[in-house]
């Protein structure tokens, strides 16, 4: 076996050693959830977001897919789908980066310094540009409504079963279909 598969294991390992709560979807190393705490000194502080991470076959040559599961109000995150528009985890990704970078640097930076000039949530961007205080207020409302730490523990159970599996199969091309959730 060549190195890429071990990079997955190493990166995942480092993430877990960094005290992130990681929950595997199945026992595969392809998809998992990571709990992400809003950085202090940002209006996101106090909220916890569940991030769905998917490592593509070509990881680390190809960037991981990152999406917010619970809602967040942010100019660069699509409110509906949770997709993130961030160059370092998309166009300028390099195999030198790893998952710890994503959670320790890229996402905190994104939440601390939103970039309203490349918005995915145009409304949030416009509000941020015009009325920073109102924008931060809105962020907090969302945070309190959707990102309460106590809610995070319960939510994912149902998600991890059939839905994820069926997704596995639909793009299974050459990828081995991972087994069901570990009992």
């Amino acid at each position, binding site marked *: *076996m*060549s*190195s890429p598969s*071990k990079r997955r*294991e*190493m990166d*995942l*390992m480092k993430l877990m*050693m960094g005290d992130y709560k990681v929950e595997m979807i199945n*026992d*595969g190393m392809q998809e998992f959830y990571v709990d992400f705490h809003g950085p202090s000194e940002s209006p996101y502080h106090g909220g916890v977001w569940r991030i*769905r991470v*998917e490592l*593509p*076959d*070509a990881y680390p*040559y*190809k*960037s991981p*897919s990152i*999406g917010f599961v619970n*809602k967040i*109000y942010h100019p*660069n995150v*699509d*409110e*509906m*789908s*949770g*997709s993130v*528009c961030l160059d370092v*985890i*998309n*166009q300028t990704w390099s195999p030198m980066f790893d998952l710890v970078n994503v959670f320790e640097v890229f996402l905190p930076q994104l939440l601390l310094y939103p970039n*309203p*000039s*490349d*918005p*995915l949530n*145009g*409304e949030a*961007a*416009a*509000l941020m*540009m*015009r*009325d*920073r205080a109102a924008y931060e*207020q*809105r962020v907090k*409302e*969302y945070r309190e*409504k959707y990102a309460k730490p106590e809610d995070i523990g319960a939510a994912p159970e149902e998600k991890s079963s059939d839905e994820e599996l069926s997704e596995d199969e639909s*793009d299974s*091309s*050459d*990828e*081995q279909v*991972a*087994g069901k959730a570990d009992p």
Partner: protein
Amino acid sequence: MLKLGFLGFIVSFLVPIFVGFALGDYLNCSYKFLIAFLVVVILSIMGFSGVFSSLLHYMLPRKRACEGVAVHEDTDNNNENKKIRILEAADPTVKISSDVVCGENNCNSNSSDNHGSGSLVKKEEKEEASFMALGDANSTDIDEDLHSRQLAVYGRETMRRLFASNILVSGMQGLGAEIAKNLILAGVKSVTLHDEGVVELWDLSSNFIFSEDDVGKNRALASLQKLQELNNAVVVRALTTNLTKEQLSDFQAVVFTDISFEKAIEFNDYCHNHQPPIAFIKTEVRGLFGSVFCDFGPEFTIVDVDGEEPHTGIIASISNDNPALVSCVDDERLEFQDGDLVVFSEVHGMTELNDGKPRKIKNARAYSFTLEEDTTNYGAYVKGGIVTQVKQPKVLNFKPLREALTEPGDFLLSDFSKFDRPPLLHLAFQALDKFVSELGRFPVAGSEEDAQKLISIVTNVNESLGDGRQEDINPKLLRHFAFGAKAVLNPMAAMFGGIVGQEVVKACSGKFHPLFQFFYFDSVESLPTEPVDSIDFRPLNSRYDAQISVFGSKLQKKLEDAKVFIVGSGALGCEFLKNVALMGVSCGNEGKLTITDDDVIEKSNLSRQFLFRDWNIGQAKSTVAASAATSINPRFNIEALQNRVGPETENVFDDTFWENLSVVINALDNVNARLYVDQRCLYFQKPLLESGTLGAKCNTQMVIPHLTENYGASRDPPEKQAPMCTVHSFPHNIDHCLTWARSEFEGLLEKTPAEVNAYLSNPNEYSTAMINAGDAQARDNLERVLECLENERCETFQDCITWARLKFEDYFANRVKQLIYTFPEDAATSTGAPFWSAPKRFPRPLQFSAADLSHLHFVMAGSILRAETFGIPIPDWVKNPKKMAEAVDKVMVPEFQPKKDVKIVTDEKATSISTGSIDDSAVIAELIMKLKQCQKNLAPEFRMKPIQFEKDDDTNFHMDLIAGLANMRARNYSIPEVDKLKAKFIAGRIIPAIATSTAMATGLVCLELYKVLDGGHKVEDYRNTFANLALPLFSIAEPLPPKVIKHENLSWTVWDRWILKGNPTLRELIQWLKEKGLNAYSISCGSCLLYNSMFPRHKDRMDKKLVDLAREVAKVDLPTYRRHLDVVVACEDDEDNDVDIPQVSIYFG
């Protein structure tokens, strides 16, 4: 070095839900790369439908007047009857007094007939003239279904020039046949095959057309019919008598594969001085040596030197300075080079630069360059601006052969380890010509006497050169040259057929840079490692005699008994099958070749997958290819399968299958499959011969157990993809618009109807699932379903027109109005910088007008497809613009009010956050209620018909809608629009492909196959290639060895595997590794984790047998005969450094 791997066709094109989700897994062929090739000279945007009816004519499988020259005159007796007809001479005054026979006639029976001097040529001219007059469109327009992949390389202008070119190919042994094949597939106007000799058994080593029955027939005549079958739109003729130079004036390009230098010089002088000049190519393959000489005339103009799309940049600033510094946005690196000419457009402020004048650039950097221009007094740069490279034509002054022989200039190098070869081979080929003219025969294989004679001729020629002579004439190499001189080998013919075919295309079109002027190549490393006894070279009176004369009969036996697996039966696969059939690979009693491909034949395949004919469309590729290959060599032991190779077919391609193979040849079109086969070959320690093409480029890579690195060890950088926000709201090029268009197409016509059907099939189950999900996605799905069944439900065609018209309003007016309401033109970011700054482009809404045909066309395509999803019949008048316009004007379009935005909402924040964030579950419940109501009004059997995007059908309106969506959006953002064809290339991700580069790649691989099947070659003997026929460039080099990893006193490579026997437990495995100084922290099987030291619950697994863990956790289904399983272990040494250890095989039996 780039590896080219591609997949082509069905690629899901969603705007990713998660970043990087949809595109990357499937594709490796860089988007940019692809686009770079789409140098399409767009002549007309409109007028497809008008042309289309005439194109239908081209698609007919039956034969047409333009091929069967004399057919016009008696239509009741024409070729449809497949009668054998002999064209009689009638007019003795024609200038070509030779036996010219057309492809449609049965040449075999003709060959014995003496039909006088061929008046039919004259007739033909007349006929062609009248044909042209009748249907100009027919002869100059392009069957885009057939040629789409090739069009993506050449563009329409080049294709039109090809269609007007008449080519002579003289010498119909293997090389001539390959060249003619490539040109006929490309679609020139006519190919005339010239050969005065007869087919010998000897020819069967290299010529895929001849069978043993053809021995004794004239080569040109024997080739005619089978070559004609490749493309009915090309006139194929045979010429069997002595050629005079005056006859050459009938052609735009002439190719000689078997001609003496004396004759060549005479012909070349004539061609060189002819007005206009006739492109002249002399080429030969002699054993493992080959040569090409090109002379396209004293002043040949190249229109496009490299075939790459002009580079562009988005300007960020320009200084008022001398020289002026131009900086571009740092989204993408600039690809300009010093000396390039560029033009500017859309520059605000420094408008002096917008004059369209080409300017030369200097100091080209990644994001900036300077202009040799004093801009001090120009207006100050404000914003905007695009800089575009202007491609300059280039003029080449070719020397005629007479001069070039003594002053050859620079040779095109291919292999830097052989930099001194070309001058030597230049002498060797001249010496061989002398040898043949003196003795009237080629040197005999194995004859030291003949070899010595050749060497002495070379020595004499060399001595006569004085100062220009070679230091070392390498007698050992010349001996090999002499021995093989008589033989034409198939792999060499395939390779040179590709190169020369491409040169002819260049000569006819001015597209790509010609070979200037000599090219020499050898592959002596392909010879067996052990010396061959001269007796072993002797002919055995078999079809392989030519090959035996080069390699000896021992290697021939090895080839025949080889067990080969060819993965894929597309363009590469077809060429490979032809090559190996001719080489006799797997043609012995012990031999067996397995080919597999799960695809069926489509029309667009026919322009290069030459084993397929139009009547095979819809049939399985592998089966058709295998049966065609068997007719090339009846002794071929071949089995055709329709299985895709992957983890799901490991029951078909099981351990025994892999273990029995001698070699694997990849003929794939996607990286994932390549990686999978690579892993299997690594596992079973099998040689893998890998190749790929992209347009005029190709590469080959040899993966040899323990000698070279594996395919997956190096990778192309992943393809760049546009950021989502760009695609959503801020497109700045047509690719962004097309990406968006495909995503909208899928949403509207495929996903939503499918979602509707999912609901209707089982409303309760669907509703429950949505309630359980309870998220934004579920809500969105329900909203779409409801919209489709309620407000936007269509019952009549007029409803569909209304829908399409309102979609137009929504996409191209309302959304844009909303966006520029949210972000006005003067909006500034928090830092005060303008929001609408490069690369963002400020959009403007469109005002619908039925008088604008592109608007109308959009509504037409949209309403037709919408009607299809609802099963509503499409009226005939739909294509009548006037009626359509009337219908569209009936649609009531509500006035748009921008959503009162965030400023207002901020005041009411106490009441609600905004519609977007109302509790999803409450909305979901309400939507389900409404849906239930709605369903009552529907017939119980009502279902929608989802539409799947199909790019290759010009009549289905899919590309019309996608091009419409993309172009209207482009218009919003003032981005240049594209025609439907170019839209199809980009949106359909059509991989540019041509026959020439494919043929060359397979020839190169088969030269390596000799080495693999001989066995015992060292890594220095193998060659990987990267080539670009457009430049032309050949970069041939030794493969890289595998990386050696060392740990303590152990060392290993990727080819190694560790074995642990005795059915160990997890703990035992960890302990076993511990004893080697390795701390295992993670163990996985397939994509499943068996153990990770971070998971406390995994500690419970310590004393389980690994095989049981694999069965329980990873759900590995081990076949009953299998006694082991393989796990991947991630380890650290005692200093916490990661150590990449081999795969570990756990034996439990």
